[in-house]
């Protein structure tokens, strides 16, 4: 899901940088209000986890590969804005040092993986918390389902961004969304989505059993659905 340089035209790249500026601003503002110095190492480890998790490429039945992001787990533990910061840092290092995801496409990649994914998963987890009585079950199942839906939605956005290029800015990615959206959706509905969902649910279940304090961290995010 890491859009390389040259796939998006300059207008699209600028657009997503501009969209991300207020999101990054709000993430830092909320973190300034709610982040505690004792939880900073937790955020650092979660950001590192996201980076490592993305190195595990999984085979997709169509011959391509896909990977989880970890944004749903970070969102469930520390809130969606914390996930925005953690995944943004991971994407930045990937782009600068490893050429994974472009510098010009960095805004778009952050929009998909550091915004759409964690906010969607958080919304869905909170929906489960509203409906289910058992807080623990709601968190584990809600975050897992949220991870599955969130990463798939992020992938569809990624497909749209590259797939509109031949129509809005010819000269960049030549393949239309008729190709890119189904390909991205398929990879994440079948493999990368289940990976994101299952890992999110398993880690949360493990933490509930052995380190439940991690479930009580203050969430850095907006109140969504009153949760």
């Amino acid at each position: 899901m890491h859009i390389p340089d040259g796939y998006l035209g300059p207008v699209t790249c600028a657009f997503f940088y501009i969209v991300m500026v207020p999101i990054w601003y709000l993430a830092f503002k909320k973190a300034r209000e709610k982040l505690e110095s004792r939880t900073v190492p937790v955020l650092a480890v979660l950001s590192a986890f996201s980076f490592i998790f993305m190195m595990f490429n999984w085979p997709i039945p169509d011959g391509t590969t896909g990977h989880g992001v970890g944004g749903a787990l970070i969102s469930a533990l520390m809130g969606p804005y914390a996930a925005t910061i953690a995944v943004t840092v991971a994407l930045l290092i990937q782009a600068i040092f490893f050429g994974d995801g472009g510098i010009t496409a960095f805004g778009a990649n952050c929009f998909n993986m550091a915004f759409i994914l964690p906010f969607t998963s958080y919304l869905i987890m909170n929906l489960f918390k509203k409906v289910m009585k058992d807080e623990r079950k709601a968190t584990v199942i809600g975050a897992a389902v949220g991870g599955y839906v969130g990463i798939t939605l992020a992938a569809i956005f990624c497909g749209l961004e590259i797939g509109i290029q031949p129509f809005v800015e010819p000269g960049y990615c030549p393949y239309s969304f008729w190709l890119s959206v189904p390909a991205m959706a398929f990879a994440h509905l079948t493999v990368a989505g289940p990976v994101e969902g299952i890992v999110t649910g398993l880690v949360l279940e493990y933490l509930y059993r052995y380190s439940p304090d991690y479930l009580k961290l203050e969430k850095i995010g907006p109140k969504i659905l009153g949760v």
Partner: protein
Amino acid sequence: MRKTIVVLAILILLTPLGLLAPGEAWGEWSIEDWNVSESWKSVAEKIANIWSAPLPDYNLPGWEEGALPYLGYIISAIIGVILIVLITIAIGRILARK
């Protein structure tokens, strides 16, 4: 904290499993592989070349033979994790309540 470091270390040692999946991610091909005319690719290739990452594809340049890409992948994971932890802690220190 020690437990966390052990878990991260194990995950880092396992990352080469991520290289076993055949093929590459959809839409992350080299631009020269695009099925279009050379003139279409020229501007896109210029943009693609504005930045050369020091460790492209999570490997050390030239480490293509035998087990070297797997080792390069692990070294990349270690470098990436160290950088990310340092940057996130720096950002966190600036933002966090005392």
